[in-house]
């Protein structure tokens, strides 16, 4: 496929998103959330390139979200809160990463799950600090100095999410094409060979892990600014499962996949979750199964297949 197709598609998708948000005002909220989650999913994509899947990445989303909730009263400005969320999730990603990158496959997955559940119970149990399951309401904040007036602020957050999504997409593309990114695929195929040619596999994976944590934290911060309320459920295993689901649905073959998946997921959820709240996980599981069995490249794979057929 032409090297320009992906950026062009991304541009078209961006225009489409802006148009949709402009034409149907309530969509702005849904799409902002989709972009925020897509950002976190993009992080997991990096790890999947190394053949590792994290069942616990919602912990970084929750970390980013709680950072915003905690610091909003002291630092009521989105453009300052975001870097702070990035900073905290980078530090957390580095510390946790130093531990988990020593493990592979199911150990990697389950250790992430375990740490994510530990974070969940910390958020839930320490009521005095985190208000437990009640969660914390995010106090009003300014964005780029703009006072919180509903319409403009919604647009600003949407724009912020869009800029971050496009920026991270480009970053991930460049990163995956670089030697560091190529080495990730080497971890998946045969790590020992990678080390024989002198590439420190763990450090390669650690870098990807920290990057993915930062993207998760960023997504979480955006989520908190949009929904204005954070609860420990952000770090529950189902939230992590949701992120993995979005990645497989969208397809891990391109940086566009996570956002495609997230948009499809959030749009369906708006309608379906209310209708079939009891069977929501079941439907997700069923779709996940169907995608893996019948369309392992995800939605992006279908799109890419079409394009290739036409070209």
């Amino acid at each position, binding site marked *: 496929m032409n090297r320009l197709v992906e950026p062009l598609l991304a541009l078209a998708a961006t225009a489409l998103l802006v148009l949709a948000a402009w034409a149907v005002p309530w969509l702005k909220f849904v799409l902002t959330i989709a972009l925020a989650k897509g950002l976190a999913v993009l992080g997991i994509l990096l790890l999947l390139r190394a053949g590792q899947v994290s069942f616990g990445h919602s912990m970084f989303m929750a970390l980013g979200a709680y950072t915003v909730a905690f610091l909003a009263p002291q630092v009521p400005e989105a453009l300052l809160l975001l870097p702070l969320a990035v900073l905290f999730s980078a530090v957390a990603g580095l510390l946790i990463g130093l531990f988990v990158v*020593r493990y592979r496959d199911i150990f990697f997955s389950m250790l992430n799950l375990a740490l994510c559940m530990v974070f969940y119970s910390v958020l839930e149990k320490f009521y005095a600090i985190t208000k437990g399951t009640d969660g914390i309401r995010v106090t009003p904040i300014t964005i780029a100095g703009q006072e919180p007036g509903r319409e403009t602020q919604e647009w600003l957050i949407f724009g912020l999410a869009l800029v971050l999504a496009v920026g991270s997409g480009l970053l991930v593309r460049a990163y995956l094409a670089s030697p560091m990114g190529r080495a990730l695929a080497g971890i998946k195929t045969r790590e020992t060979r990678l080390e024989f040619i002198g590439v420190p596999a763990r450090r390669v994976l650690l870098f990807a892990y920290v990057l993915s944590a930062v993207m998760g934290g960023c997504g979480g911060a955006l989520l908190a600014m949009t929904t204005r309320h954070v609860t420990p459920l952000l770090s529950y295993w189902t939230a992590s*499962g949701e992120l993995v689901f979005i990645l497989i649905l969208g397809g891990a073959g391109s940086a566009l996949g996570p956002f495609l998946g997230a948009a499809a997921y959030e749009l369906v959820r708006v309608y379906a979750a209310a209708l079939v709240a009891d069977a929501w996980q079941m439907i997700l599981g069923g779709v996940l*199964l169907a995608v893996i069995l019948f369309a392992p490249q995800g939605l992006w794979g279908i799109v890419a297949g079409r394009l290739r057929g036409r070209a």
Partner: protein
Amino acid sequence: MAGWFSENGLLLGLALLDGLSYAALVFMVAVGLNLVFGVLRIVNVAHGSLFAIGAYTAASLGLFLSARGLPPAAGYAVLLLAAVLVGGVLGPVIERGVLRRVYGQEDVLQLLVTFALFMILEDVQKLIWGVQPLFHDAPMKFLGTVDVPFGEDVIPFTAYQIFVVPGVAVATLAGLAWFLRRTLTGRVIVAVTTDKEAATAMGIDAAKVTLLTFTFGAALAALGGALASPTTSLVPGVGAQTIVLSFAVVAIAGLGQIEGAALSALMIGMGRSIAVYFEPELEVVVPYLIMVAVLLVRPQGLFGVVETRRV
């Protein structure tokens, strides 16, 4: 120390007894998980759901039958029946219907397929049994309590949890060791675990062994659930908790270690119940902390063998 002991001795005794029965239950699930991994090379994330469904089936069946005049002593047969039923139906359905389609595919996809199954089964369980707690403790009440001497104190504790639950676990451990080492079927399973290709070349029907092992493992998990059902009221979320705990047990022991799993189940069971009695806040975190601590020191588990690295 002596002062602390006279004050908290009773509590510690209770914690140890509780921990023993809990460890026995976790062992039942972990040993099945281990066995299935050995043959299929898939860590079945849905294994915890089989525990939950086994528990619910046993409770429903028990309530249904005792309402129709089943003598309480026959309640134990009902527990076994529930396990056979769940394992015998769900085992083949999952293995033949789903897992068989992804053998030989990427590890990540296999893992995600079982994760999808887990999501589906969690909701199936909620749809069938609702979210109201279910409770049927007749099999536990029937045996009454025994007085356990503990230092100078005497602790009255249910005979069911002291004799039946650990008894079944010990019988499983001994039976399994005998089965795998002394019977033809058992040795065939070991052969497939060790080297599937060589075993197939010797004329072993690996597909049959796989089906058999998976069904057997599923039945063990369901039996664990059935045994647990009289001791606690059943609520959604049991499945998620169980799979993480039993994975922790397997990881601590080292994948493929059956006797080791018994010891690490004791560590997890005791650790958790001591936390329940002394620091309830830490209950959720303790099993993870034990796992993380062990894996930090011995990444291959306490009894695991370091795998030779392939080049």
